[in-house]
């Protein structure tokens, strides 16, 4: 059992996408999302897809890694398609008709539009986490959230929580895999029966997994305190990330282009 979602699974590299300052990258992803949610037709989505393909190519991240996130949302994609496409006693042209239920071509097209939007959204956000190490990502979030400290928002603590959470995703996935194998060795089966039976079959995996997670969290908290962690206030960084002129130019240019595309197409 591998973790199906690539979030938090950094793919190391030295591509221009990897080198881009994380805050600039997050700004670009935000603009990309604005573009995705403002385009009205397939022409806009085609431009977004082109930009996504370009970014993936430049990043040198294997496409299968980027697409792993898409596989994880495949159920949502099918649901989106059907929710828009299926009609009860459709009056308009239908592609397929089984009894009173028909797959409407216009509805299917709308469903396809939303499904493609989700796919592109997942690709864009996956690329951010695949090309930015969790530590750099959390640093960037902290820097972005810093103004909120004026409103007593604990930006440092939130960033630390994110760093720790991201750091432990692969460890937890690995541990879950070990427990699954150990329970299978004791005759457990996860692929039999209805949804309820299958869900119950995971109890022998989830209980020890959570017990171990809480235990580890407790140990980690003690270990951090033992190393004088007293919250985010006043903590300095070993390596400060700086926005260069190139980062700023990339952010400005990229965001302008994408938001313009969103408004025009």
């Amino acid at each position, binding site marked *: 059992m591998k973790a199906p979602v690539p979030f938090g699974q950094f793919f190391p590299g030295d591509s221009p996408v990897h080198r881009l300052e994380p805050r600039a990258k997050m700004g670009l992803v935000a603009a990309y999302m604005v573009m995705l949610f403002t385009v009205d037709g397939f022409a806009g989505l085609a431009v977004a897809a082109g930009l996504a393909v370009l970014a993936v190519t430049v990043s040198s991240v294997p496409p299968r890694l980027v697409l792993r996130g898409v596989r994880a949302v495949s159920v949502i994609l099918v649901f989106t398609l059907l929710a828009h496409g299926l009609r009860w006693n459709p009056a308009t042209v239908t592609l397929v008709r089984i009894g009173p239920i028909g797959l409407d071509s216009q509805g299917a097209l709308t469903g396809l539009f939303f499904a493609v939007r989700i796919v592109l959204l997942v690709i864009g956000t996956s690329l951010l986490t695949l090309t930015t190490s969790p530590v750099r990502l959390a640093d960037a979030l902290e820097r972005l959230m810093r103004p909120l400290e004026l409103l007593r928002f604990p930006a440092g603590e939130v960033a630390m929580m994110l760093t720790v959470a991201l750091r432990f995703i692969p460890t937890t996935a690995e*541990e879950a895999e*070990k*427990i699954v*194998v*150990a*329970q*299978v*060795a*004791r*005759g*457990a*089966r996860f692929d039999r029966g209805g949804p309820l039976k299958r869900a119950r079959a995971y*109890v*022998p*995996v989830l*209980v*020890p997994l959570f*017990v*171990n997670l809480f235990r580890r969290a407790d140990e980690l908290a003690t270990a951090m305190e033992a190393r004088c962690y007293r919250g985010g206030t006043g903590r300095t960084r070993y390596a400060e990330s700086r926005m260069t002129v190139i980062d700023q130019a990339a952010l400005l240019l990229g965001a302008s282009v994408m938001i313009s595309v969103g408004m025009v197409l």
Partner: protein
Amino acid sequence: MSLALTGVSYTYAAGTSFATRALVSVDVAFGPGEVVLVLGATGSGKSTLLRVAAGLLAPDAGSVTLDGRLVDGPLAVVRPGVGFVFQSPEMQLFAETVEVDVAFGPRNQGLSEDEARIEALRALAAVGLDAEEFGTRSPFSLSGGEARRAAIAGVLAMTPGYLLLDEPTAGLDLSGREAVQAIVVAARTRAGVVVVTHDAEEFLGVADRVILLSEGRVIFDGPADELVQSPERFAEAGLRAPEILRAQMLARDAGLALPRFALDPLAAAALIAGAREGAR
């Protein structure tokens, strides 16, 4: 009747730049009623050997037979009749009580509640946990050693013909290690037992046979006493010989004519004293 690996090779991440050869043309067989100790340094392939034998990994080359039947294909599950005790097996405990947890395997094997309970009680007794005292306790309230024993009971309750244990004493204190050692000795009467460890000292005294692995190859496969009598072979596998044998090697190097080596400290002392007497 044996669990046999013939010409087995296994490479992790084969075909990529991260490819690591873990096993190279390994021929070994484990019989019922014997305790086999698989020794090797970190990365020697001993855990991979155990996983291939258990059916968790399908070999790249070679075959695995269980009591004469060929078992192949990428299984990713432990073969029926083979019990596998993973490293830190207490991680698998989940039920409300120790007894229910130990009965999990037998119930999955299709036994009735009563039959599963009988097997669970028998397994708890086999690992030295009193069912009256421990059966109704939460597995999460057990000490490290007790939890390890309860987890091993969970595997023994399935009455495997072959019991494979991967570093079963890792992280335990002296009493915990002794308890696990006793379980291994007792299990021999009902199953073929294979213990993988990097600590020779722990099980050498109770093993019938030892397999030494180095860089994925078997460099020694013979009776435990044969290895005790030629302790320099430990170094070939990148391991240190047990301290008691090292002391006798030093005595022999110092000119004492030891007739043989002994693992038992008292016997070793007697041998050294006898040799000193003879030297005078």
